């Protein structure tokens, strides 16, 4: 068993539309170690969710993985058929969805929906063991096991989110992808659930990819953070580095765009311009039209995603804003 539970190498996924391909995920490379929590942050439409659904291969018909590999426990899942992929889904890699409110089927009890996945992936479990496991999961996520026979519409938003997390944990996956799991909830519930997720992740020593547009949420749960811009991973490092020593101009701009409660008071900076149209991404570095440090080379050549300090990767010709 290797150290990396998930390795993504040069992943490129495009949506084929009538107007041409949309470059949703382009040459993304990262890895997740066993028991590690990483975050992916970026504005909406930057390809975060596209990465998530590529990892589980839940692509819509018009989406194609053109290049790269996704290794789950050293097995490349890109060439697998849908049927073969079913063995990895939920068993090795599970997901907490963005719209968790609707991600449970309204006509089946919560227990049935969790048990269904376990019957599929852990057929050796008896009904008794399955029921006990569901009780355990309910306690783990902070729900009363007595509620398991109820239907999703009888749960509140926060409870449903907890149930969805319990469902994602049901087959003991090696890695969980959490795609904006708390976005639809109010701040207090959001905080309680984030805390619970972090505790569970540490307790079960489970790897996790946390996807959010909210950098504060990411900071709370992840050990390393990847920053995405226009379908590309532009910077990746420890949470500490990303927050205090960002080297990609986009990350720098992102960091100065939200207020710090304890730190010194600085003016919030907003980034001029719009994220690029992924049908026609700009040549060279995709950030160059909005970058204050852009030079000739940025307009012509794409920068490589390379290590600038130990474990600190970035794709920029002028890291740290140095010309």
């Amino acid at each position: 068993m290797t150290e990396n539970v998930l390795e993504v190498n040069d992943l490129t996924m495009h949506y084929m539309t009538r107007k041409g391909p949309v470059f949703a995920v382009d040459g993304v490379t990262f890895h997740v170690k066993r028991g590690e929590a990483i975050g992916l942050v970026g504005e909406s439409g930057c390809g975060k969710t596209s990465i998530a659904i590529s990892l589980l291969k839940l692509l819509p018909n018009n989406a194609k993985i053109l290049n790269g590999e996704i290794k789950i426990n050293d097995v490349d899942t890109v060439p697998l058929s849908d049927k073969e992929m079913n063995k990895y889904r939920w068993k090795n890699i599970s997901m907490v969805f963005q719209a968790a409110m609707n991600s449970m089927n309204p006509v089946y009890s919560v227990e049935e929906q969790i048990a269904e996945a376990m019957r599929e992936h852990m057929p050796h479990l008896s009904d008794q063991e399955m029921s006990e496991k569901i009780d355990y999961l309910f306690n783990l996520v902070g729900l009363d096991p007595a509620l398991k026979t109820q239907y999703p519409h009888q749960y509140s938003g926060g409870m449903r989110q907890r149930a969805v997390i319990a469902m994602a944990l049901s087959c003991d996956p090696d890695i969980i992808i959490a795609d904006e799991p708390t976005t639809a909830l109010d701040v207090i519930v959001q905080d309680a659930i984030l805390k619970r997720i972090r505790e569970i992740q540490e307790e079960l020593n489970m790897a996790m990819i946390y996807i959010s547009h909210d950098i504060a949420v990411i900071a709370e749960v992840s050990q390393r953070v990847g920053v995405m811009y226009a379908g590309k991973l532009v910077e990746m490092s420890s949470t500490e580095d990303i927050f205090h020593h960002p080297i990609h101009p986009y990350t720098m701009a992102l960091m100065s765009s939200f207020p710090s409660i304890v730190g010194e008071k600085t003016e919030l900076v907003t980034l001029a311009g719009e994220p690029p149209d992924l049908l026609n991404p700009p040549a060279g570095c995709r950030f160059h039209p909005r970058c204050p440090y852009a030079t000739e080379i940025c307009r012509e050549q794409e920068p490589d995603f390379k290590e600038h300090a130990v474990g600190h990767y970035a794709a920029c010709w002028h890291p740290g804003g140095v010309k």
Partner: protein
Amino acid sequence: MWKFLGKRFLQMFITLLMFQTVTYFLMDAQPGDIADLLTLNPDIPPAERERIRVDLGLDRPPAERFLKYIGNFYKGDLGVSFSQFPRPVTEIILERLPRTLVLFLSASVISFWAGYASGKVLAWKRGGVIEYSSTLVGVILYTVFTPWFALMMIWLFAVYLDWLPPGKFLDPILWLTAPEGIHANDVFVRMIWSVMIATGVMILGLIGTQRLSSQLRKTGRWVSFVVPFIGVFLYWRFASSGISLYAWDILQHLVLPVLTVTLIAYGGTMLLMRTSMLETLREDYILTARAKGMPEKIIRDKHAARNALLPVWTGLVFSIGSSLSGGIITETIFSWPGLGLTLLNAAQVEDIPLAMGALTVTGVMTLLSHLVADIGYAFLDPRIRFS
């Protein structure tokens, strides 16, 4: 549950009473009455006409007659038919009702199941010639003018191919030579019972095999499908061999009307199921089910189709009323002596007791099927059950 049912029955009773009031006065508002029709011959003296009126009670004011009718109705007395004097209305209806029920129940069940199953598959395998042509056929069946379609069916199957009799409930020439003591209705009721028992056995078998392991379940299902068929066959071949010839005759006459009504109802159900399924497939919980690594068949049948069924079921509720009244047309074209044809004939000759009886039974059937559909909906959708 009991409180709900009690409330519903009270509502249904009030609705029925209103329905009866309106239909009675509308029926009565037709110009003339049966006495006029019976005395069309100029040789009959006018005094005779008045005598018939007094005999039938038609000389009393409508309000008085209505109150008397309602009073008798709820005592279980539906009166005597004017046109088939002196047969009691109850007797006529008991003879005709099973024929209509069989026609519409079998057509509804078959078309609902077929529409559900094919709509589901069409939405799942989107695109391609099969989907386009099926949708086209569905739209044609859904929008076709019923009488024309029924005539075309008669032309195709009864005239051109000559496979099936063109109409009527039985073949009079065959039944002329039938031995003493064989009545069409007895044979028909016996046919209904044998099919109902077979269906019951089939359903029990399917429920019973649900708990078995997958290999045994397959065999169990197969057995519970085949055994009732064999049972019915053996029953008619040996136990009732004397009348099986006549049962076969009725069955042959039943096929074409059932097929026609089924096809017409099928179009709408299939289109609705397909659209509903396409919508359901976009839901988040379908993505969840795929992420859980569930096999395709489970995603399609257990997750998508089960939810897509809900609006189709609602559609069924709405179509019950119209299919019963549309029955008049179908029964007329196929000369099927059911309740619809009885109603039409009675209304034409101003046979008020018979027409009222037929209308009321139709109304009660509509109300009851709405109740059944509502209860079924509560079973299908837990969100209704718990609110």
